[in-house]
Structure formats: C-alpha cells, structure tokens
C-alpha cells in the first residue's frame, strides 16, 4: 500500500465530492429576481476538505478493522478503558467516589443553565434506560416510545390543571398509566416481529400525538397546557435557583433508582427471559418461557419509566403541547440506546449525556450544530458499531458439588 495510491484515491474522492456537492453548494438561485449566484469558492473548500477527510477516514477505518481482528484473537483482554473501569474493582471505587463528589457538587459549582441542561440530560438517561429494557434487553424495536412519555406528561398536566393534584401523587400514577399503555400497545403487536413491530410502534406513537393535537376538549390541542406546578418540597417555597437544584437532585435520585431497578431486573429471572427472547424467540419459547407475558412485561416496564419521566418533564417545563412528542424524540432516545451499547447501563448513561449535552455545547457553532450532530452520529456508528460499551455478561457464583 503506497502513499501514492492513497493520495490518488483521496484525490478521486475529492473530485467525486466536488461533483456531488456542485448544484447545492455552488449554485444559489434567486427564483424571483432570476439571478444566479455562482459560489465557486465553496467547490474549492469541498475539494480540499474531502481530500483530507477521506485520507483520515480510510486510515481510521483500517485501524478499526485491524483492531477488531486483534480483539478476536485475544478474547479476554479486549475491553476498552471504560469497560475496565466499570468492571474492575480497583478502578471502580475511586472512579465512583470521584463521580459521586462531582455529581453532588455540580449544581453548586455550575450556574443554573448548566444545571438545567444537566437535568434534561438526566431525563434522557432515564428514558434511555427505560427503552433499553424494550430494545436492548428484549430486542423489540420500539419507534413509538415517546407515546408513553406523552402519556406521563399529559397525566400530570391534566390532573394538575383540573384538580391541582401535586407532583408527588402523580409521579407513580404516570408510571402506572405508562405501563398500562405499554400493555395496550403490546397486545396487538405481539405477533409482529422485527421491523414490522418498529413501524407499528411508530404508528402508535403518531396516533397518540395526533389525538392530543386534535382532541381539544380533552388535551387543549396544540395550544397545550400551561402553568403546570413544579415539584413541591414539603410545602416550602423555593427560589428559582433553589427549584432548579431541587429538580436536579430529584433527577439524580430518579436516575439512581432507575439504574438500581434496571440492574436488578436484568440480572434476574425476568431479565434473562428478555435476553433469551432477544436472542432467539423460538428457542426461548421452546425452553418454557411464556413469550406473551415476557413481551408484555418488557413493554410495560419500559413504558413505566417513560411515563414517570413524562411527569417530570411536565413539571420541569411547566408547559406541554404535542410538539414535544414527535417521532424525532423517539429516534433520539433510540439513538441513545444503540449508541450506548444495547443492554449496557453505563453505556446508555454516557450516550444520553453525549447526545443531549452535545447540541447544547455545539451552540458555539450555532448554525452548524445540527449538521455536526448528524455527522457525529454517523461517525460514532461507523467506528463503534457495537456502541460505546458493549454489554458484558456477568458471571455467577456457584457451588461445586462433588458427586
């Protein structure tokens, strides 16, 4: 492999991209005044950029392939740094202590904006962990997860608006209603597999949103519900910053609670059944696992978290309308699960933080931020298709019995 042939390849790639981007990047037409603006300089930029990017792209792709071959040859030590920190005690305790201090100090060091976006990110951590049950563990591709999120949000929005019921009373109710809707959706789609399931769940999510949009008498339609009460703290009146801090710690608690529950679930009899269902549906049934029940519990438990986060969402924004529950939201949550590494809790946490905080920190790039965001999603998938942290199966303690 000579450098020359590499350069030639990149040169051809650059030519190709110059051709590809020609009409859209170079020509700008003002159809009204019939003026054509030729922006030749853009073509130059594209050429130079794609030349170097293609060099880098192929270099990293080769490295990735070499890496995956190496990983195959040595099975035991192929964990990445993060995986090692998460699995080895020696690293785990200091890492966790540092993380704990960081988490507690965060809202006191950072300003309220930072805390606020962190709250949003934490909400997505919980959503990601919830969807992880359905997609990551049970292998049921759900593209309408946002429907349950909407159910939770509207539960609180409506109950608070009409009856003034408080946050803490509705939180479990939102979860329960989420679960109920999970089962309602689960029943008709039990027979469907794979991508058929995906499109039906997508349709279900859209149906819920459209109903919220059109049924004014019930949901106040697109103008939404305003003035939803923020969570109360033993009846204390908090300052604005106090409320943000309070919500932050509430979310931290929620995240810890979710991690605790999901972790226990996935290492239980039910969790194993979910994974078996994901791995091979027929064998799973043949081993005596009730497919219907297992699927329904996955849907219901996944939806529970969405319902609860929905309640928190309504309390945080104090205003909800159907626009917040579009398909893109579902896609975002799904991306968190896949990017994190299906079934891996730590992976989902990291992915949620990246995907939600990234657009905020990309504000500096203003117009380009969504462009970069899309590109980063592609790049991460190409170079790390198994997700940030590939899920590691745990090992069990067992007694050796002498016969």
């Amino acid at each position: 492999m000579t450098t020359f042939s590499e350069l030639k390849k990149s040169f051809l790639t650059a030519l190709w991209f110059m051709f590809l981007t020609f009409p859209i990047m170079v020509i700008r037409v003002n159809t009204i005044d019939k003026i054509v603006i030729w922006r030749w300089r853009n073509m130059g930029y594209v050429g130079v950029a794609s030349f170097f990017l293609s060099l880098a792209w192929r270099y990293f792709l080769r490295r990735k392939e070499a890496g995956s071959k190496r990983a195959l040859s040595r099975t035991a030590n192929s964990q990445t740094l993060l995986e090692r920190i998460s699995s080895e005690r020696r690293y785990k305790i200091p890492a966790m202590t540092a993380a704990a201090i960081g988490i507690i100090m965060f809202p006191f060091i950072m300003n309220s904006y930072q805390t606020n976006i962190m709250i949003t990110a934490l909400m997505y951590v919980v959503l990601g962990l919830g969807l992880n049950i359905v997609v990551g563990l049970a292998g049921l591709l759900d593209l309408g997860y946002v429907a349950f999120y909407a159910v939770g949000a509207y539960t609180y929005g409506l109950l608070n608006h009409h009856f003034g019921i408080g946050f803490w009373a509705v939180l479990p109710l939102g979860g329960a209603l989420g679960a109920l809707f999970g089962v309602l959706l689960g029943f008709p789609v039990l027979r469907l597999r794979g991508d058929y399931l995906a499109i039906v769940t997508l349709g279900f999510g859209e149906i819920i949103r459209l109903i919220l949009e059109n049924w004014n008498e019930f949901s106040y339609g697109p103008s939404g519900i305003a003035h939803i009460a923020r969570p109360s703290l033993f009846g204390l009146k908090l300052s604005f910053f106090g409320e943000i801090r309070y919500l932050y710690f509430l979310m931290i608690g929620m995240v810890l609670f979710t991690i605790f529950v999901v972790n226990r679930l996935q290492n239980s009899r039910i969790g194993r059944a979910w994974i078996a269902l994901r791995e091979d549906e027929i064998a799973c049934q043949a081993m005596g696992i009730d497919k219907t029940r297992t699927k329904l519990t996955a849907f219901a438990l996944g939806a529970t978290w969405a319902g609860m986060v929905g309640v928190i969402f309504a309390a945080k924004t104090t205003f909800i309308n159907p626009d917040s529950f579009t398909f893109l939201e579902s896609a975002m949550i799904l991306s968190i699960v896949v990017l994190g590494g299906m079934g891996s809790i730590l992976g989902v946490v990291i992915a949620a933080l990246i995907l939600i905080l990234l657009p905020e920190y990309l504000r500096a790039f203003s117009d380009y931020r969504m462009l970069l965001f899309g590109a980063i999603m592609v790049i991460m998938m190409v170079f790390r298709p198994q997700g940030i942290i590939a899920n590691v199966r745990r090992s069990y303690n067992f007694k050796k019995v002498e016969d």
Partner: protein
Amino acid sequence: MEYFLELFMGGLIRGSIYALIALGYTMVYGIIELINFAHGEIYMIGAFTALIVASVLAVMGVHQLAILAIAMLAAIVYSSAYGFTVEKIAYKPLRHAPRLSPLISAIGMSIFLQNYVLLAQTSDFLPFPSLIPDFKFLEPYSSILRPTELVILLTTGVVMLLLTLLIKFTKIGKAMRATAQDRTMALLVGVNVNQVISITFVIGSALAAIGGVLIASHIGQINFFIGFIAGIKAFTAAVLGGIGSVPGAVLGSFVLGLTESFATGYVSSDYEDVFAFALLVLILIFRPGGLLGKSSTQKV
C-alpha cells in the same frame, strides 16, 4: 359520484407519489434489511437539484420541455450519486455490525443531509416552477385530473413496469433477487454482492428523484424538510404492502393514498393520519407480513 371520483383520483395521485418513494425503501430493505431513513432526504435532494438546474436554465432562456428533460435527468443523476455515496459512507462499513447500528447511522445521515441543504441553500420555501406543460385537452376535466396529475400517474405506471421488467428479466435483476434471498449463497455463486447493493441504492434513489421532481411540480414548493414527512408515509406504505416486495410497495402506497383521501373526504382531515396509521396497525395484526409480504412463519 363526482365527489367520489375526485377523492378517488386524489387518492391515486397520493398513492403514486408514495409509491415512487416507497420502492426505494422496499428495495433497500429487501437487500440489506435496513430501514433507510435517509431515503426521504435523497428525494428532497432530487427535488432541489431539479429546482436549481431548472432555474439556471430558465434564466438562460431554454425551452420549457428541454428544461423538464434536463432537470429531470440532473435530479436522477444527482440523487443516484447521493444514494450511492450515502451507502458507501454510512452503511457499508456497518455491514457486519449489530442490526440496529445502521439504523442509527441512517438517522444521523438524515439529520446531516437536511442541515446540509438548509445551510447551503435556504430554510425558506422555494417556489418550484411548473415544469409540466398544460394540456389543452384536459381543461374540461380540470377538477378531476390536472396535467401534472396525469403525468404523475403515467410516469408511475411506466416506472413500475420498467422496474418489474428489470427485476424479472435482466442479469442484475436476478442478482438482486438472489442477494435478497440469501446474501451468503449469492456470494458463493459468484454474485458481486457489494455491486448489487450499490446498484439497488442507485435505482432506489433514481426513483426517489423522479418522485421528487413530480411532487415538487405538483405542490409547487419545496424546502429542506419535505423529505421527512413524505419519507415516513412512504415507509409506512412499504410496510403495509409487505416490506421487501416491489408489487407490495405499490399496492400499499395506493391503499394508503386512497385511505387518506377518503378519510379526509368522508370523515375529517383532522384524523387523516390517525386513519392511515390505524389501518396499518389493523392490517399488520391480521396479516403480520403485510398485504403481499411473505408469510412470516419462521423455519425451525
């Protein structure tokens, strides 16, 4: 009766539009089992390319029919080129990755392409020139069928026919069918699988480009976001018909188009999409493989 006919024609037009996009989805799915979320963007880029080329030619004062031909050709060439490139960048490196990873890559690509067009062109709606000439003989029937609509129906029909012939009778068509059935076997009997996948993307993108130009002429305006909604609907249609099946995609598109049209006409346009999705759910419950899809009994 006239009202019924109007709605019926409206449904057919919608169906044709969905079909042109749905075919790309279904072909790609048939070959590599990927929901290509960026497909709607390919369609959008086709429409933009046609708009840009047509405007430039119009400023230069070229004849209308020549504009139509050149703009259409440019749209097809560029959409195909984009489809081809997207596959090489975002899907090919993921061929052996976990099943959902290419899906996320596709979502990322879709966001990227939308914003690329937004930044390089504009966020505003642009008026799309009516490239299709007015046929005098249609004037008395203008409330039922307009020239653009006639062209859309005819083009869709011709394209379907050509595609069926291509898949049934040509060498590449056979290779595509073989790859769809069993990629490993196809590889073993000497099919260049990578090439087949590329060609599938190119053909699917070309169809989307044709759809893009026709739809844009029909509704008279485009912006960077048109691909998303049309894409979701077309995908729904493809699944409705049985994803992976070419006649299924066409049938599903017409069923969806007619349902929407009649739901609006006889019930309410408020719940037009609710009807569309409810129909999808119902059909899949009773026929889990879609209308013309393979029965989903798995081999044990």
